[in-house]
Protein backbone atom coordinates (compact mmCIF):
# COMPACT_ATOMS: atom_id res chain seq x y z
CA UNK A 1 0.00 0.00 0.00
CA UNK A 2 1.45 3.31 -0.99
CA UNK A 3 1.07 6.90 0.01
CA UNK A 4 -1.66 8.00 -2.40
CA UNK A 5 -3.49 4.69 -2.94
CA UNK A 6 -6.99 6.16 -2.89
CA UNK A 7 -6.07 8.34 -5.85
CA UNK A 8 -4.48 5.45 -7.75
CA UNK A 9 -7.47 3.15 -7.20
CA UNK A 10 -9.92 5.83 -8.33
CA UNK A 11 -7.65 6.32 -11.35
CA UNK A 12 -8.04 2.66 -12.30
CA UNK A 13 -11.82 3.11 -12.02
CA UNK A 14 -11.60 6.12 -14.32
CA UNK A 15 -9.69 4.06 -16.89
CA UNK A 16 -12.26 1.24 -16.84
CA UNK A 17 -15.16 3.68 -17.24
CA UNK A 18 -13.33 5.44 -20.07
CA UNK A 19 -12.97 2.09 -21.87
CA UNK A 20 -16.66 1.37 -21.23
CA UNK A 21 -17.51 4.75 -22.79
CA UNK A 22 -15.30 3.84 -25.77
CA UNK A 23 -17.14 0.52 -26.23
CA UNK A 24 -20.55 2.22 -25.96
CA UNK A 25 -19.45 4.85 -28.43
CA UNK A 26 -18.47 2.10 -30.87
CA UNK A 27 -21.79 0.27 -30.37
CA UNK A 28 -23.86 3.40 -30.91
CA UNK A 29 -21.82 4.47 -33.93
CA UNK A 30 -22.37 1.08 -35.54
CA UNK A 31 -26.02 0.71 -34.52
CA UNK A 32 -27.25 1.24 -38.08
CA UNK A 33 -24.71 -0.95 -39.85
CA UNK A 34 -26.11 -3.12 -42.61
CA UNK A 35 -24.30 -6.09 -44.11
CA UNK A 36 -25.12 -8.72 -46.66
CA UNK A 37 -26.76 -11.88 -45.28
CA UNK A 38 -23.66 -13.84 -46.29
CA UNK A 39 -21.59 -11.76 -43.82
CA UNK A 40 -21.88 -11.47 -40.07
CA UNK A 41 -23.58 -8.48 -38.50
CA UNK A 42 -21.76 -5.91 -36.35
CA UNK A 43 -20.99 -7.45 -32.97
CA UNK A 44 -21.69 -5.37 -29.86
CA UNK A 45 -18.79 -4.84 -27.47
CA UNK A 46 -19.20 -5.65 -23.79
CA UNK A 47 -16.40 -4.53 -21.45
CA UNK A 48 -15.68 -6.99 -18.66
CA UNK A 49 -14.45 -5.33 -15.45
CA UNK A 50 -12.47 -7.27 -12.87
CA UNK A 51 -10.96 -6.40 -9.50
CA UNK A 52 -7.19 -6.04 -9.23
CA UNK A 53 -5.16 -7.92 -6.63
CA UNK A 54 -3.73 -4.91 -4.83
CA UNK A 55 -6.93 -2.86 -5.02
CA UNK A 56 -8.53 -1.19 -7.98
CA UNK A 57 -10.29 -2.41 -11.08
CA UNK A 58 -9.18 -3.37 -14.55
CA UNK A 59 -10.65 -4.43 -17.88
CA UNK A 60 -10.35 -8.22 -18.06
CA UNK A 61 -11.33 -8.27 -21.71
CA UNK A 62 -13.99 -7.42 -24.23
CA UNK A 63 -16.79 -9.89 -25.03
CA UNK A 64 -18.50 -9.57 -28.40
CA UNK A 65 -22.22 -10.04 -29.01
CA UNK A 66 -23.55 -12.52 -31.55
CA UNK A 67 -23.09 -11.94 -35.27
CA UNK A 68 -26.61 -13.01 -36.24
CA UNK A 69 -28.05 -9.51 -36.05
CA UNK A 70 -31.51 -8.96 -37.44
CA UNK A 71 -32.37 -10.13 -40.94
CA UNK A 72 -34.76 -7.65 -42.54
CA UNK A 73 -36.21 -7.35 -45.98
CA UNK A 74 -34.96 -4.36 -47.94
CA UNK A 75 -34.92 -5.22 -51.67
CA UNK A 76 -33.80 -1.71 -52.65
CA UNK A 77 -30.57 -2.11 -50.69
CA UNK A 78 -27.62 -2.91 -52.98
CA UNK A 79 -26.41 -5.43 -50.39
CA UNK A 80 -29.69 -7.36 -50.48
CA UNK A 81 -29.51 -11.05 -51.43
CA UNK A 82 -31.65 -12.74 -54.10
CA UNK A 83 -34.68 -12.82 -51.78
CA UNK A 84 -34.21 -9.14 -50.84
CA UNK A 85 -32.86 -9.67 -47.32
CA UNK A 86 -30.02 -7.79 -45.55
CA UNK A 87 -28.50 -8.23 -42.12
CA UNK A 88 -28.71 -5.32 -39.66
CA UNK A 89 -26.75 -4.82 -36.47
CA UNK A 90 -28.85 -5.85 -33.47
CA UNK A 91 -27.86 -3.00 -31.14
CA UNK A 92 -30.44 -2.01 -28.53
CA UNK A 93 -30.07 1.78 -28.49
CA UNK A 94 -32.16 2.12 -25.32
CA UNK A 95 -29.84 -0.21 -23.46
CA UNK A 96 -26.78 1.56 -24.88
CA UNK A 97 -28.04 4.98 -23.78
CA UNK A 98 -28.82 3.64 -20.30
CA UNK A 99 -25.33 2.19 -20.07
CA UNK A 100 -23.94 5.51 -21.33
CA UNK A 101 -25.49 7.25 -18.32
CA UNK A 102 -24.10 4.57 -15.99
CA UNK A 103 -20.62 4.86 -17.48
CA UNK A 104 -20.68 8.65 -17.30
CA UNK A 105 -21.89 8.68 -13.69
CA UNK A 106 -19.32 6.04 -12.77
CA UNK A 107 -16.58 8.12 -14.33
CA UNK A 108 -17.77 11.21 -12.46
CA UNK A 109 -17.95 9.27 -9.18
CA UNK A 110 -14.35 8.13 -9.56
CA UNK A 111 -13.25 11.66 -10.45
CA UNK A 112 -15.00 12.88 -7.29
CA UNK A 113 -13.07 10.29 -5.26
CA UNK A 114 -9.78 11.64 -6.65
CA UNK A 115 -10.77 15.17 -5.67
CA UNK A 116 -11.95 14.21 -2.18
CA UNK A 117 -8.82 12.13 -1.54
CA UNK A 118 -6.64 15.05 -2.60
CA UNK A 119 -8.56 17.40 -0.32
CA UNK A 120 -8.18 14.93 2.55
CA UNK A 121 -4.41 14.64 2.08
CA UNK A 122 -4.14 18.43 1.94
CA UNK A 123 -6.11 18.65 5.21
CA UNK A 124 -3.56 16.28 6.75
CA UNK A 125 -0.77 18.59 5.64
CA UNK A 126 -2.46 21.48 7.47
CA UNK A 127 -2.20 19.70 10.83
CA UNK A 128 -0.08 21.75 13.22
CA UNK A 129 0.43 24.57 10.76
CA UNK A 130 -1.65 27.11 12.69
CA UNK A 131 1.10 28.58 14.82
Amino acid at each position, binding site marked *: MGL*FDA*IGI*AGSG*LTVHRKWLDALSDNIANADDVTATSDGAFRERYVVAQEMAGGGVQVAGVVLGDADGRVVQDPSNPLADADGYVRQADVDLTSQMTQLILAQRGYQAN*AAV*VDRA*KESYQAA*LQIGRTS
Partner: protein
Amino acid sequence: MSIAPVTAVTAVTPVQGLAGTGAVTAPASDGSAFASVLGSVDSLQQMQATTDGLAVQAVTGDLDDVHDYTIAAAQSSLAIELTAAVRNKAVEAFSEIMRMQA
Protein backbone atom coordinates in the same frame (compact mmCIF):
# COMPACT_ATOMS: atom_id res chain seq x y z
CA MET B 1 22.21 5.25 77.35
CA SER B 2 23.33 3.28 74.35
CA ILE B 3 23.68 4.66 70.89
CA ALA B 4 22.09 2.59 68.18
CA PRO B 5 24.63 1.43 65.66
CA VAL B 6 24.49 3.17 62.31
CA THR B 7 22.87 0.89 59.80
CA ALA B 8 24.57 0.29 56.54
CA VAL B 9 23.50 2.65 53.82
CA THR B 10 21.51 0.74 51.28
CA ALA B 11 22.82 0.88 47.78
CA VAL B 12 21.30 3.68 45.76
CA THR B 13 19.21 2.28 42.96
CA PRO B 14 20.38 3.58 39.63
CA VAL B 15 18.16 6.27 38.12
CA GLN B 16 15.81 4.72 35.61
CA GLY B 17 15.35 6.26 32.20
CA LEU B 18 12.47 8.69 32.14
CA ALA B 19 9.37 6.69 31.49
CA GLY B 20 7.14 7.93 28.75
CA THR B 21 9.75 9.55 26.60
CA GLY B 22 10.16 7.45 23.53
CA ALA B 23 13.72 6.43 22.96
CA VAL B 24 15.24 8.57 20.27
CA THR B 25 17.29 6.34 18.07
CA ALA B 26 20.49 8.00 17.11
CA PRO B 27 20.98 8.22 13.37
CA ALA B 28 23.53 5.78 12.09
CA SER B 29 26.95 7.34 11.99
CA ASP B 30 27.41 6.48 8.33
CA GLY B 31 24.85 9.13 7.44
CA SER B 32 22.30 6.62 6.14
CA ALA B 33 19.41 8.63 7.66
CA PHE B 34 20.30 11.59 5.50
CA ALA B 35 20.73 9.29 2.54
CA SER B 36 17.20 7.97 3.02
CA VAL B 37 15.89 11.55 2.88
CA LEU B 38 17.79 12.00 -0.37
CA GLY B 39 16.18 8.78 -1.61
CA SER B 40 12.70 10.17 -1.05
CA VAL B 41 13.72 13.34 -2.88
CA ASP B 42 14.73 11.07 -5.76
CA SER B 43 11.29 9.44 -5.82
CA LEU B 44 9.71 12.91 -5.76
CA GLN B 45 11.82 13.83 -8.75
CA GLN B 46 10.68 10.63 -10.49
CA MET B 47 7.05 11.57 -9.84
CA GLN B 48 7.66 15.00 -11.37
CA ALA B 49 9.32 13.35 -14.38
CA THR B 50 6.25 11.12 -14.88
CA THR B 51 4.00 14.17 -14.77
CA ASP B 52 6.21 16.01 -17.24
CA GLY B 53 6.17 13.02 -19.60
CA LEU B 54 2.37 12.87 -19.48
CA ALA B 55 2.16 16.63 -20.09
CA VAL B 56 4.26 16.18 -23.23
CA GLN B 57 1.97 13.31 -24.31
CA ALA B 58 -1.04 15.56 -23.73
CA VAL B 59 0.22 18.33 -26.00
CA THR B 60 1.45 15.93 -28.69
CA GLY B 61 -1.84 14.05 -28.74
CA ASP B 62 -0.38 10.75 -27.51
CA LEU B 63 -2.26 10.79 -24.22
CA ASP B 64 -4.76 7.91 -23.90
CA ASP B 65 -6.39 8.97 -20.66
CA VAL B 66 -6.92 12.60 -19.68
CA HIS B 67 -7.21 11.58 -16.05
CA ASP B 68 -3.78 9.91 -16.15
CA TYR B 69 -2.21 13.34 -16.49
CA THR B 70 -4.44 15.15 -14.01
CA ILE B 71 -3.96 12.39 -11.43
CA ALA B 72 -0.18 12.39 -11.87
CA ALA B 73 -0.19 16.19 -11.55
CA ALA B 74 -2.29 16.00 -8.37
CA GLN B 75 -0.02 13.31 -6.90
CA SER B 76 3.21 15.15 -7.62
CA SER B 77 1.81 18.42 -6.28
CA LEU B 78 0.71 16.61 -3.09
CA ALA B 79 4.11 14.97 -2.78
CA ILE B 80 5.91 18.29 -3.16
CA GLU B 81 3.60 19.89 -0.57
CA LEU B 82 4.38 17.00 1.79
CA THR B 83 8.12 17.34 1.21
CA ALA B 84 7.97 21.08 1.80
CA ALA B 85 6.01 20.52 5.02
CA VAL B 86 8.57 18.02 6.30
CA ARG B 87 11.44 20.31 5.34
CA ASN B 88 9.83 23.31 7.05
CA LYS B 89 9.28 21.29 10.22
CA ALA B 90 12.90 20.14 10.20
CA VAL B 91 14.24 23.67 9.73
CA GLU B 92 11.88 24.90 12.46
CA ALA B 93 13.22 22.27 14.87
CA PHE B 94 16.81 23.15 13.97
CA SER B 95 16.20 26.88 14.56
CA GLU B 96 14.57 26.08 17.89
CA ILE B 97 17.65 24.16 18.97
CA MET B 98 19.93 26.98 17.81
CA ARG B 99 17.97 29.44 19.99
CA MET B 100 18.63 27.39 23.13
CA GLN B 101 20.54 29.26 25.87
CA ALA B 102 22.68 27.66 28.54
